[in-house]
């Protein structure tokens, strides 16, 4: 319950501000441009509707992860740099509840991005294959990934206590996680590419989207990847809990 207060405070301070709101307008503008280009170039492009839906789902996931990382990096290091962590520690809320509230705010941010993206997903995927099931997978796996990366970044922020450094390290991790996207299809089929694909939670999510939306494969094909994503989720939450419990002023 106390975590809810922290979450509300975070939402008021980060999301319901004109500056925070600008992120969502920009998200919407980027999604508008992408959807319009995809659909108007449909006749000329090599992309079918499933491919377009898959690409837009990847983009939304990456955006959610990126914003989760920023939220996470700011969570404790930002409070320390602004000199507000002391006041937070003096309040009758323990460290784990503070972390839970902050994760809740990061999750709210992901929820808003997901809600903003829904009309675009429906427009781009209309008349195509696996639209609804794709959205269901995006909702679940996007949430798992948002928690994983936010919790990791928050844990890092609590340990490093420097927003700049935790943000830079988080971005490097994000780039590393996104590395399989830059590999060619042939490179990804090698043993190295396959292992990298399997152990990387971000690659697991986009490969699951590919399998569900483009290849129309059922949940049976996704079990291993979803299990790995859940494994990372548990690990990152454990890392956050451990980092926060050691946090001292």
């Amino acid at each position, binding site marked *: 319950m106390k975590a809810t207060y922290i979450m509300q405070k975070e939402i008021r301070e980060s999301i*319901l*501000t*004109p500056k925070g*709101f*600008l992120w*969502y*307008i920009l998200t*919407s*503008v980027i*999604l*508008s*441009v992408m*959807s*319009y280009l995809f*659909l*108007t170039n*449909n*006749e*000329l492009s*090599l992309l*079918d509707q499933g491919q377009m839906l898959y690409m837009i789902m990847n983009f939304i996931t990456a955006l959610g992860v990126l914003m989760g990382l920023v939220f996470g990096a700011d969570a404790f290091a930002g409070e320390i740099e602004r000199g507000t962590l002391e006041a937070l520690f003096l309040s009758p809320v323990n460290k784990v509840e503070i972390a839970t509230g902050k994760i809740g705010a990061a999750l709210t941010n992901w929820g808003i991005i997901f809600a*903003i993206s829904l*009309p*675009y997903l429906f*427009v*781009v995927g*209309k*008349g195509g294959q696996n639209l609804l099931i794709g959205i269901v997978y995006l909702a679940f796996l996007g949430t798992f990934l948002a928690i994983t990366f936010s919790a990791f970044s928050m844990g890092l922020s609590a340990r490093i206590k420097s927003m700049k450094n935790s943000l830079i390290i988080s971005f490097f991790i994000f780039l590393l996680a996104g590395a399989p996207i830059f590999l060619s299809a042939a490179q990804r089929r090698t043993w190295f590419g396959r292992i990298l694909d399997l152990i990387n939670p971000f690659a697991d999510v986009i490969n699951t989207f590919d399998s569900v939306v483009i290849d129309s494969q059922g949940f049976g094909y996704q079990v291993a990847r979803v299990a790995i994503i859940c494994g990372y989720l548990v690990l990152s939450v454990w890392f956050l809990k451990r980092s926060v419990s050691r946090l001292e002023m």
Partner: protein
Amino acid sequence: MKRSILFLSMIFLATAANYASASAGRITVSINPPSVQANMGDKITYAGTVTNNSDRAIDNIIAYISLANITPGKEAPLDLEDWSANKAIKVDTIPPHGTYEGQWPMRLIDSGSYVAYITVVDKNDNMPVSSPMSRLEIKRLLRLNPNNVLPVAIGEPVALGMVFMLVAFRRRKRVK
């Protein structure tokens, strides 16, 4: 000497002509429709019929469709993968005097004049067999609002902007 060369040449030509007509006669290929007029973005399907005119079954033949751009100044064969066309079809067997019907659906990506034809390759023959050419005219078409994207693409950022202004206005009012 001249007579010998002439005689040998005649034998060679006769053999070659016989060989070519034999392979071409054993298999015939047709393509349907014989001509198509469509718009960019349309999906059409070419049907090809491979007929075995011989008394023996034909095994393991490959049938594939080709498209050539004949628009003046743009003459070139096309990579059909871009047009979402089916790849080559492997036909296991066609019984004597039997037929095989294959279908090649494709999405028309670019405007222009094209010819489409189906070719059959039999590993026991040296000559591929092709169908007559089907003319394909694709008209340029620009859709500015496909899937009704514009209301969402314009409306959502505007709606969010309005909510943003409302939040900012309320905050300012509260501060005052």
